[in-house]
Each structure stands twice: as C-alpha cells, then as structure tokens.
C-alpha cells in the first residue's frame, strides 16, 4: 500500500468513527448522571431512518439532523421517565426499547427504502487542507467529522473543568450527597439523559445522511453498532478522550477487516466482518482485568518489584463506573 492510500484510509477511519464517537460521548454523559441508556442500538437505527425521512421530505439535511437529535432525546427521556419517575429497572426498559425501536425503524422505513436523498459532503477547510498528510487526514472531512473532533474536547472540558460538570459527576457518583449540597438530582438526571440522548441520536443521521447515505432497512448494516457503543463507553472508563480512543480503535479494526479480506481469500468474509466485535470485548476484558481477585492472587506469587509495576499499570487502566449508575435516587 502506498503512502497516499494509507493517508486516505486514516482519514476514512476518522470519518467512520464519527457516529460511534457521538453515540459514545452521548452515552458517557448520560451514564455520568446515573442514567444507563441501553436502548442505544434501536435508537441509532430509528434516528437514522427518521432523519433520512425528514431530509428526504424537506430536502434539508439540517432538519434531518435535528430530527435525529430529537429522536435520541425522546427515547432517552422515556428511559429516564420509566426509571426516575416510575422507578422501573433501567436495564429492562432500555432493552425493550432497543428491540422496539429497531423493529419500528424497519417497519416505518419501508416506504423510503432504497430511495436517493440529500446527504452532506466533504467540506475541505481552505488553507489547512493543503498541509501535507495532516491536511488530508483532518481537514478534508465532512462537517460532522469536524464536530466529532470538537465534541471530544468539549465533552472533556465540560465534565472535568466546569462547575455543572462537577455536579454532573457528583449526581452519578453519590446522588444523596449531591442533593444535600443543593442539587436537584432528578431534574439534572432528566436534563443529562436528554442531552446525552440528543448527542447520541446524531449518530443516526451521520450514517443515513453521510457515511451510509440512504435507508436500506435490515441491510443497512447498522444493527449491532449500538451494542458496541455501550461496550466502548465502558472501555472508555466514562472519560471522553479514552472513549474516543475506543471509538477510533473499533473503526480501525473494522477497516482492517475490509483491507485484509482480499489478501486472505480462504477466510470467509463473515469472519472478518464480525471480528472487531469479539476483539473489542477482549480489549474490554483486558482493560478491566485488574478488578479480578484471581489476578490479585496470581500477582501475589510474583517477585515484589515486578508485581508493583504490573499492579500500577492495571490500576491505571482500571475504570470504575459512576457508583450510582442505574440506581434511582430516593431519600433513604
């Protein structure tokens, strides 16, 4: 593979990771507040279909994207209402919604199957695009990919550098303590579930109005993305930069599958297509291995200096979820 092909490929991986990034950051924000939105998979499909339908009908991609965000926010608010107000299990409600939204998108999307509609295109940034290599990688993308870069930094800044972000972390970590300090826990949880949902909902139109333009129903190839998004959220340790790394890693593995296909004709194509999924899960296992007791026990047998270093690496990789994730807030 020559250099320019490699550069184009990297640019392609960044673009392919954009929807995953939006979804992962959205879920990260929602989970930081304590609301686990398991409906992600169906939500992405429904917002992909819905936003394409709106864009097709109105001819406006902007309205399409707004529709995607609205669907994401709405589905998340259903999860939030069921768990925060009706005190039902977030897992059960989210799971059912994941299935419902998926089937709904296939059913409602039938009339627009295979139609050609508007889509967003690449917008090279004048000047910057001519920087060798980096210009092609970073500055010849579509608008949403640019936004995805900004989103990583903005989400990190909000969560770790602002006061509302600090309160957000507190609400997901120890809602009672946050309440005692004057936070309106359930209102904030609704708010961040909606915001996180809206951000994640943009993943749908990024597919249907850009990367995989159009709506192709069951063969859209979007089914399953939402589940991997949930696992990347865990891989990312609820931190935006680490989550972004996870999204890029997954997009890279998918690209690798495509590239390796021609050079490995004996391997069935399905194997390489699904390989990124188990690989992601293996990475997840590796990242969280420091939690396991058997690891502690086997480490205890190693010499002291080696053990200390390994333990330090494991501890640094270890990520703990927001302590109150999925738990409703009640005053004792």
């Amino acid at each position, binding site marked *: 593979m020559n250099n320019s092909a490699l550069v184009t490929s990297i640019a392609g991986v960044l673009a392919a990771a954009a929807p995953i990034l939006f979804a992962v950051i959205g879920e990260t924000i929602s989970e930081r507040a304590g609301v686990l939105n398991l409906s992600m998979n169906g939500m992405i499909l429904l917002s992909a279909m819905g936003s394409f339908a709106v864009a097709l009908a109105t001819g406006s991609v902007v309205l399409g994207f707004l529709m995607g965000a609205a669907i994401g926010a709405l589905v998340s608010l259903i999860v939030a209402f069921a768990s925060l107000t009706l005190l039902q299990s977030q897992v059960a409600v989210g799971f059912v919604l994941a299935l419902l939204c998926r089937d709904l998108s296939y059913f409602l999307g039938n009339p627009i199957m295979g139609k050609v509609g508007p889509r967003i295109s690449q917008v090279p940034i004048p000047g910057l695009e001519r920087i060798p290599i980096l210009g092609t990688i970073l500055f010849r993308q579509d608008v949403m990919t640019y936004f995805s870069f900004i989103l990583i930094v903005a989400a990190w800044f909000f969560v770790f550098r*602002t*006061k509302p972000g*600090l309160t957000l972390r507190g609400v997901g*970590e120890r809602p009672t303590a946050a*309440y005692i*300090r*004057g936070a309106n826990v359930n209102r904030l949880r609704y708010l961040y579930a909606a915001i996180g949902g809206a951000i994640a909902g943009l993943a749908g139109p990024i597919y249907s109005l850009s990367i995989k333009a159009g709506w192709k129903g069951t063969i859209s190839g979007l089914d399953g993305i939402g589940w991997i998004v949930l696992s990347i959220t865990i891989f990312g340790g609820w931190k935006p930069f680490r989550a972004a790394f996870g999204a890029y890693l997954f997009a890279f593995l998918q690209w690798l599958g495509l590239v390796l296909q021609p050079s490995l004709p004996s391997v069935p194509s399905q194997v390489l297509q699904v390989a990124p999924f188990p690989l992601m899960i293996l990475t997840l296992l590796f990242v969280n291995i420091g939690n396991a007791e058997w690891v502690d*026990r086997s480490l205890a047998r190693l010499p002291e200096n080696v053990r200390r270093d390994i333990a330090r690496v494991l501890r640094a990789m270890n990520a703990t979820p927001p302590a109150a994730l999925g738990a409703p807030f009640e*005053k004792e």
Partner: protein
Amino acid sequence: MRVELRGITKCFGSLRANDNISLSVPPSTIEGVLGENGAGKSTLMKILSGFYSPDSGDILLDGKKVKIDAPADAIRQGIGMLHQDPQDFPPLKVIDDFILGKKGGLLPNRKNAARDFRELSSRFDFSIDPETYVDSLTVGERQQLEILRLLWLGARILILDEPTTGISLPQKEKLFATLKKLASEGMTILFVSHKLEDVEALCSRATVLRQGKLIGSMEPPFDTRVLVEMMFGKEVPQEPKTQLQVGTTVLSVKHIDLDGIRIQIKGVNLQVRAGEVIGLAGMEGSGQTLFLSACAGLSQPVGGSFCLDEEEKEMTGRTYHEFRKKGVAYLPAARLEQALIPGLSLTEHFILSEGMRGFFIDRKKSEELAKSRISLFNIKGKPESTVESLSGGNQQRALLALMRDPLKLILVEHPTRGLDIESTIYIWGKLKERCARGTAIVFISSDLDEILKYSDRVLVFFAGKVTPPLDANTLSVERLGRLIGGKDWDTLGTEAAHA
C-alpha cells in the same frame, strides 16, 4: 443565630420518629443532643437541614419563621450539616469536592478556592492536601473537609451527627477545639451524640431525646447518672472485667509482611490463645483492617506465615472459605454492605448460614429456628423483617446470632460502632460468653475505652508500625493515646508483654 424548633412532628409509616419536639438554641452555644439509637436525633437534625420535611411544626431563625423544604434552602439560610457518614465524593479530588455545590459561575475558580481552603485549614490547624483524592483521607479528615466546606459556604449554624464515631482520639481533640473556637466566634452548634463523655466534655447544654420525644435538658455541671436515666429510662448495669483463662494457641502470626494500597506493614508476630481478647488500636487507616483481614485470608501477605492450632495447620495463602471451615469468623464494620444481605429476611439469613440440607426450604423449621435465635439474642425484629429495617444494634445482634458455634477465632472490625450503651454492653456480653467457652477474639476499635475495657492484650498501629502485644491491665488511656498518635514508640522495646 438563634435556632428555634417548634412542635416538630415527623412520622415514617406508623413510627413517630419525632413527636412534637420544641427546642431553642441561642448563638455561641454548643447544644448536645443526646439519645440512644432510634431516639429521633438524626431525624430532627435532617429536618433542620432540609433533608426531610416535617409533618407539622415550624423552624425559626432569629425569631423569623423560615421555610426549609430542601437542603438547598437550608444552605441559603446558613445551616450546614455534617452527616454521620460524610456526604462527600470519594473518587474526586479534595479541591473538587470542596467546590461541588458552591453556587455561581460556569467555571470553578480553582485557584481562589484552593487559597480559601488553605486559609481555612490553617485557621483550624488542619492539614489536608487539596490535590489528593477524598478516598485517601481518613474518616476524621473527611469530617474536617466537610466542616471547612460548610464554613466556606457561610454556615452560621453547624449540625454534627455522631461526629466522634470512627475518628481517632487526636482527631477528636482537634474537632472539639475547632468547635469551641467556632462557638466562641458566634456559631450555633448542634452536637448529636449518644456518647455521654463527649457531650459532657464539649457542650454548654445537653438535651435528651427518647423514643421521638424530648425528655429534658441539663446544663453543666452534668450529672451522668441523671443523663443516663433520661436516655434509657433506667440505669444500665456495667459488667465487671473477668479474669482471663488462656488456653492453647489458636492462631500464630509469624513475621507477617503486608502490602496495602496506601500502607505497608512489616514483621508482625502474635500468638492468639484460646479465650483471650486482643484489641487493635490506632488511627483509622493505620493498618489494623489490613492486618485483621489478612488473619482471615481476606487479603494475602507478602511475607511470613499464619498457622492455626499450635502451628499444625499452615494457612498462608488460603482463602477465607478455608479459614472459615477451620472455625474462623470475620465480622466487618460495614454490617449491611459486607456482612448481611439487604432484602433478605432474618429467617432467610438463618437458613443460609445454617446450610440446611435438601433442595426445598423447610418453612416451619426455619421459622422456628429464627424465632428461637431472635429471642435468644434479644433482637428487636420479626423473623420476616428484612435486615435493612433493623437498627444498627439489632443488625449487630443478628450477626452474632448468625455465627456458627463453636468457633476458634472471631475477628471483628468495630464491634460496637454507632451502637448505644445498652447494645454495646449486650454485644460484649455475648462475645465474652464465647471467650469463656474458649473462643479467641481479635477486634479493631477506635474507641480507647472499649480497647482497654475488653482486651487482654493490645496491639497499637501507627502508620504501618505495630507495637508488640501490650498488657491491657497495665496500659493507661493516656499512654495508649500517645502511642496511637505516634509518640513514645522508642520506649517500647523493653516492656513488651510476654508474646
């Protein structure tokens, strides 16, 4: 600021937690609020701090009626509460925890906050690094952090709920000095406790609650006997210390090295003999818990060995399950989190711990078993009561009732933390009963009186260092306090009790 509560009533279901309570506290006062567990002290304070809303009654500040519906209202009125379990955020940095909840602005001004934090710290002689994480602090330091935070928010009324449980003696002295200083500057302080000696040492008045009602108040000089009577309605008998009858060695600890996340311990030696009680003293986080959990196989030593029964059974590297099979029991301090199963009833706990045979549950038999244990251990609860509905004292009784019989060795973290005097005496009565039948006990406590009163020998922990076993009969409170604070360690070599 003068605080007035008028006719406060609060019910939880059929329980009247607060029954028409009226109380008035003038500024510059440290008001002690006394009462045994479940007397309604915490409920009353949570009403004042906005955590609960009263069913009826009014709150007046400086004679003006105020509406406090949520903690946010209380903060605005200058009421700050230090909860029994510090309500902070363990995974955050100290400075972030300090800022969380402070109103105004989108971006926190870390620099100013850190400056204010340092200023306040130095005013009260606290030494907490604002850049460390909250979960690396001791309970006492977390309290100090909360107090600083409340002062920074502009609290003029400070409520402290059982602040002396779980902190060491030097930390307690520092806390009392701080409170006295604050009161002299005009702060109104409500000090909730069930510990008479703390209230007597600190407060300018004491008010006693019992079963949700206000019984009465007393000003210094306090008459302990009268206060006890007000708290319990009767005098509680104290059991005399019994003479130790030691038997054979049940656990020998040889040159044990331990390596915790924040602390290392080197070369501990100890022979625990049947029938004796060994107390582990020290500031929270000095290594006692690490050592005790290692004695049960709950954490693994880096060096040295553990043997049970006259060095016959080498137990190093074994799991707790294996220790348990050999007759060792471990009671953690977090009763509800680590020892009991919330959501399951007492009966179900007894079924699980007895390991009844067969696939089906024998309802009738297990109910009878639960009933007999409940009456035997004097647990206030029904067989079908879930464990989380019991008070702390009754949870601890249930834990004792769940322990197998006979046992060789019982390891207990803070056996009476958060319990009232009556439960404390009861729990120790039951533990000593076991000792009389040859069980050895090793326990951790931050209560010096408890250490000296119930132990035969004492190990003091300080920053990972451990004293040789000291004879509890010749050890004074003062000396123990100094050792816990890291003093007099150079004189230890010569006078260690026979190990």
